[in-house]
């Protein structure tokens, strides 16, 4: 029976011959895709200036990566990590930033933080966070120029967090919730928010005796001046998709946010004069870049600890660091700096928490 059959063209390879479906490339592109809702919302709010900022940061990241790989005859853009870095940088910056800010942030992140240390997988600091930190330190003014969002209140466009900070520094600790304090300081939220909150207060909450402050809806949805990627619900939506596809692990982001929330609730009031248990965690979780930092920077496998214990410890540390910097420090947001400091902790945590393999088995041959 044999002999007449044509032999198949066989390609000998080494074992194992099957691989799990999820690849590194797919993980990065899925992360890019999961940021699209937040990006779309940000671009809708901030229009052309927002598009320019995001476009420049992505372009600068891609160029920087090309410049450091093409001369060595390698092409790494297909793995999507440069695009992801550029996108995150763009989302972290406000729409009013002059062009050189996102360009320099992305370029610094890719050239110095990632490529100088060996490229993908070798960076010990998050490139996007480090780049944005570089930009905010170098140009503290321009890097925080924000414009009012579409449909938002006109006038000086300071992000709520900044406005709160200046209100506190002007008038001292306010002792009230952040939104109430902003209201007192005359911060204007959008009219859409005003009418919606009034409606909710009147129809849903008055019977229960509660009331939301004006601005709650704006802050929740991210309809405020500030970073382009500020919509916490959309970011969480994207992150939930990543969690479901098992691209990222839940421990670091969730524990980071949880520890920040707990600390903020318990001790945040000390800074604002409200005493214990009056810190306004809701406002602070939704302001600034903490959500983006938690789900897209803290969860980056390259800079996360390898062990579960390490991830828990790092999550708590990140929450604590962000809390300290937000409430008691002079940094505006604190998330980027906390991430960068946490990255420096990771190798130490790896060393401390990795189990001791290599103990010789009993009765070894």
């Amino acid at each position, binding site marked *: 029976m044999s002999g007449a059959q044509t032999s198949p063209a066989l390609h000998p390879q080494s*074992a194992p*011959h099957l*691989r799990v479906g999820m690849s*590194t490339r797919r993980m990065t592109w899925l992360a890019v895709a999961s940021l699209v809702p937040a990006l779309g919302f940000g671009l809708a709010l901030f229009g052309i200036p927002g598009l320019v900022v995001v476009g420049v940061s992505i372009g600068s990241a891609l160029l920087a990566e090309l410049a450091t790989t093409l001369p060595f005859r390698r092409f790494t853009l297909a793995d999507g990590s440069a695009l992801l870095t550029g996108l995150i940088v763009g989302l972290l910056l406000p729409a009013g930033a002059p062009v050189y800010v996102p360009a320099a942030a992305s370029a610094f992140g890719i050239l110095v933080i990632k490529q100088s240390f060996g490229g993908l997988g070798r960076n010990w600091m998050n490139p996007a966070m480090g780049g944005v930190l570089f930009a905010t330190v170098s140009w503290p003014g321009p890097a925080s120029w924000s414009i009012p969002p579409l449909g938002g209140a006109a006038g000086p466009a300071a992000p709520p967090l900044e406005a709160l900070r200046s209100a506190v520094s002007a008038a001292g600790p306010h002792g009230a919730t952040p939104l109430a304090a902003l209201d007192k300081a005359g911060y204007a939220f959008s009219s859409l928010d005003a009418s919606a909150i009034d409606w909710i207060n009147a129809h849903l909450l008055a019977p229960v005796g509660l009331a939301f402050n004006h601005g709650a809806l704006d802050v929740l949805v991210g309809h405020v001046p500030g970073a382009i990627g500020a919509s916490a619900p959309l970011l969480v939506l994207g992150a939930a998709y990543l969690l479901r596809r098992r691209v990222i692990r839940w421990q670091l982001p969730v524990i980071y946010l949880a520890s920040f929330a707990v600390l903020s609730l318990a001790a945040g009031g000390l800074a604002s004069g409200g005493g214990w248990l009056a810190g306004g965690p809701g406002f602070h979780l939704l302001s600034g870049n903490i959500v983006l930092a938690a789900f897209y920077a803290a969860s980056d*496998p390259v800079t996360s600890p390898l062990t579960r214990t390490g991830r828990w410890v790092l999550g708590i540390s990140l929450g604590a660091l962000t809390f300290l910097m937000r409430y008691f420090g002079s940094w505006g947001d604190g998330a980027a700096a906390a991430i960068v400091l946490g990255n420096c902790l990771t190798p130490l945590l790896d060393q401390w928490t990795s189990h001791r*393999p290599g103990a010789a088995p009993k009765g070894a041959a």
Partner: protein
Amino acid sequence: MMYPTKLPKGGVDPPSVITVPPGSTILNAPLPPRALIPLLQHAGSPARCLVKPGDPVTEGMLIGRAEGARSAHVHSSIPGVVTHVGPCTLPSGETCDAVTIELGGSFQTSGKPAVRRPWEGMSRRDLLERIRSAGVVGLGGESQPTHLKLAPEGRAVSLLAANGLDCEPSISVDAALLRQRPSEIVEGLRICQVVLSPGRTVLAIGDQSEDLAAAFEGLIANAGMKADVRVLPSRYPGGHEQLVASAIAGRPPSPDPSVVVINVATLHAVFEAVVLEKPLIERVISVSGFPLARPQNLKVRLGVRIGDLLEECGGSATDTRKVLVGGPMRGLSVDSLDLPVTKSTCGILALGAAEARTAKELPCIRCGACIEACPWDLVPTRLFKLVRMGDTDAAFREGLGRCTECGCCSYACPSRIPLSSILGRGKHANGREGHG
């Protein structure tokens, strides 16, 4: 008593679509017109050839005599005439001499009813001699000569485990034999029990064979044996000797010389050797894969051509891109279909173009998937970097010696780094074997 046990750590789940359902009957493969019988089908030194071209051989005749401390006899699986004795390359890359036999003449034992020979009351030495003369080796893939495995030098055996879990995800030989030859397996286990006098005997079966547990307990009780039946998770690499022993004993996996693990296919061969006085000339293998129309468990004569079996199972030459001897995790990829089935072949897996695609290796992103997948509690991401840097001493200090190259880490790696190959290379560098 049976206790479903959790795999302590690690393991991976390759797609189960490539596995032959263990319930499907083991079919007899057609007789090969020609058998290519290598003289090295076991772990150890090759057998010495006893025939030359032109010699007539009968079915089950001794054609290679065991030579050396670690060797086994080789028998002819078909009657006929020796046409050629020359070197052949095995799938592992080793070369050895092989005897080519053209089919002819009459069959001595096939087609005739098997005759039971009494064995109760035989001494240990005589039992081992029967096993040795039949050329029985481990059929779970390791191919250790069984008469050596059943004669641990002066050491007491604390546990004799019958391993009913298949070694690879695409192979269901043991599961099928458990289902279709239970009494032979139990009797083989009884023979081994007499030889070894172990402290404890356990028959370990996979969770897809869980429904057979009660039947096996009955068979064991009827035979007057003292043995437990344990159901273990069959998630790869659950069939590995060390993991079976560790799941039964409840401690981390490690090589333990007081534990003897014998595959149920080998027990079946032991039964045939001792009770039927039949030499090892055929075995059951799983032929499976996406490009095959009729994947099956086949009982084949040793020496049959792999290509013939693939045709038998409806394999298409155009769809097949890779053929593996073994399974997807540790199988050896071959470049020729003229290779024979030997005692160490558990299965043949054909892969199509989609599975055979090689992916580009990307840098390690420290995701930790390999750490989660490793059943031996190693940190492959660290070890492979040490091996690549050339620091194998540091790698051994961190446990490289425990690596069994099961392939779980490579399977799980999203950057497609060939971790198990690198670790294997590090282990065998400078001829060091390491532990395990």
